[in-house]
């Protein structure tokens, strides 16, 4: 009864893989963007800020459609990737990871940016006076101080990636074992006449996974706060 079925295991495994790659690939970009937003001033910064947060407020189906237009085989980016490297994004789990990464990106940037803003800049200045170059300061002082915030961002983005549905189904559709992640599998089951029990089981699994991630994120956030206070 409590044993997960093969179908459920397939969806869970796929979701974990998609979420892992979504987070792994967007993390360096998120750190860079967070740094730009926290530390630099330039005209149009407010636009970049808005652009980064767009996936939070735009309907997911719009994000999915934009990805379809850009990353499809006939899209400008997707076409180039296919012609140059033979990589197909659309209708593959890579596309699901891309959709999840875009949707989770604002959450990740926010968490990282907050931790970056909490870094005591006098410590960086001290490292500079001791002769460290800018990049070394970032790698040996700033980044370690940001670690809890980065971890919190990673966990939050991971949880969001696990739950991505709207952009995913619009962009990479619903292919068993390839793009049918937990939310898409739940949607499929709700469409099936006697799928309610199965949908409920998977929903519970989704809730548990999300809860684990959120609790982990909260615990990490507390550590950040403790550090700032200390």
């Amino acid at each position: 009864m409590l044993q997960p079925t093969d179908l459920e295991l397939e969806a869970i495994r796929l979701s974990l893989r998609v979420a892992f790659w979504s987070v792994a690939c967007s993390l360096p970009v998120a750190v860079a963007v967070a740094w730009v937003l926290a530390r630099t001033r330039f005209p149009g910064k407010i636009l970049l800020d808005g652009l980064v947060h767009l996936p939070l407020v735009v309907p997911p189906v719009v994000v999915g459609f934009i990805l379809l237009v850009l990353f499809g085989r006939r899209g400008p980016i997707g076409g180039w990737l296919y012609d140059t490297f033979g990589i197909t994004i659309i209708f593959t789990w890579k596309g699901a990871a891309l959709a999840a990464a875009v949707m989770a990106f604002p959450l990740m940037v926010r968490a990282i940016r907050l931790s970056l803003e909490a870094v005591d800049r006098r410590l960086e200045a001290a490292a500079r006076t001791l002769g460290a170059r800018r990049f070394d300061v970032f790698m040996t002082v700033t980044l370690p101080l940001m670690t809890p915030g980065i971890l919190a961002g990673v966990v939050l983005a991971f949880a969001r990636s696990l739950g991505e549905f709207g952009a995913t189904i619009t962009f990479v559709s619903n292919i068993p074992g390839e793009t049918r992640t937990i939310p898409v599998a739940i949607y499929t089951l709700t469409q099936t006449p006697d799928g309610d029990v199965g949908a409920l089981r998977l929903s519970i699994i989704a809730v548990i996974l999300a809860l684990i991630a959120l609790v982990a994120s909260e615990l990490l956030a507390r550590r950040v706060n403790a550090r700032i206070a200390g």
Partner: protein
Amino acid sequence: MTQTSRRVLLALLTCLVLAMAGPAQAKDLLVFAAASLKNAAEDIGKAYEASGGGKVNYSFAASSDLAKQIENGAPAGIYISADTKWMDYLTERKLIAADSRRDLLGNRLVLIAPADSTLAIKLAAGAPLAQALGDGKLAMADPDSVPAGRYGKAALESLQLWSSVEPAVVRAKDVRATLTFVERGEAAAGIVYATDAMVSKKVRIVDEFPASSHPKIVYPIALIAGQDDAAAHAFYDYLVGPKARGVFLDYGFSIIGAGAATN
């Protein structure tokens, strides 16, 4: 309680009552219709409003989606499904108004390709569809639940093509999402209704599935139990009447039980 606070309370209560009464009075008719009906049904709704009928709002989605929403209490007055199975589903649960169910429309199933594609195939038993697709995808609505996908899978199975093309199948959430994938050239081919292919300039019909290869495509219509007010009845009569029939025919649907519908 002072005079002022009593007045304030009264004013608040009045607001509350008005707020609750407001939407109920202004409630427009909501029609749940299969995604494939989009263009035709919208035209009919506009014509109905222009002819002095009440306001009609639509929700278009996969028939399976809509049936599940109605089961969960969605405030729809009329439901038009793209197959009998999902109407049966609501009938069994006594969610449609007694005696209001009737078969309204018929349709045909076609294989489409992007307008600039050279894909050519004659749909017959054992046809080399998998070879024609190459490494391209075949888009269709979810063959496990959505009517267009179920008809499509049945047709491919009876032509003994399903097992060879199944790995290439991309499951879209409804028939119009299927159309989008083919329009954009992301799928090499797709299975949609003839009426869907006709509303898009970006796809062309490769071939029509033999009518004998899949269950007859039937669109039943019914009023939803408990939601069948005068507005719903009036639009229902319009939908099964001659004016709507003309629009449906223009969009390529066939009329079922035309004799019975002459009112």
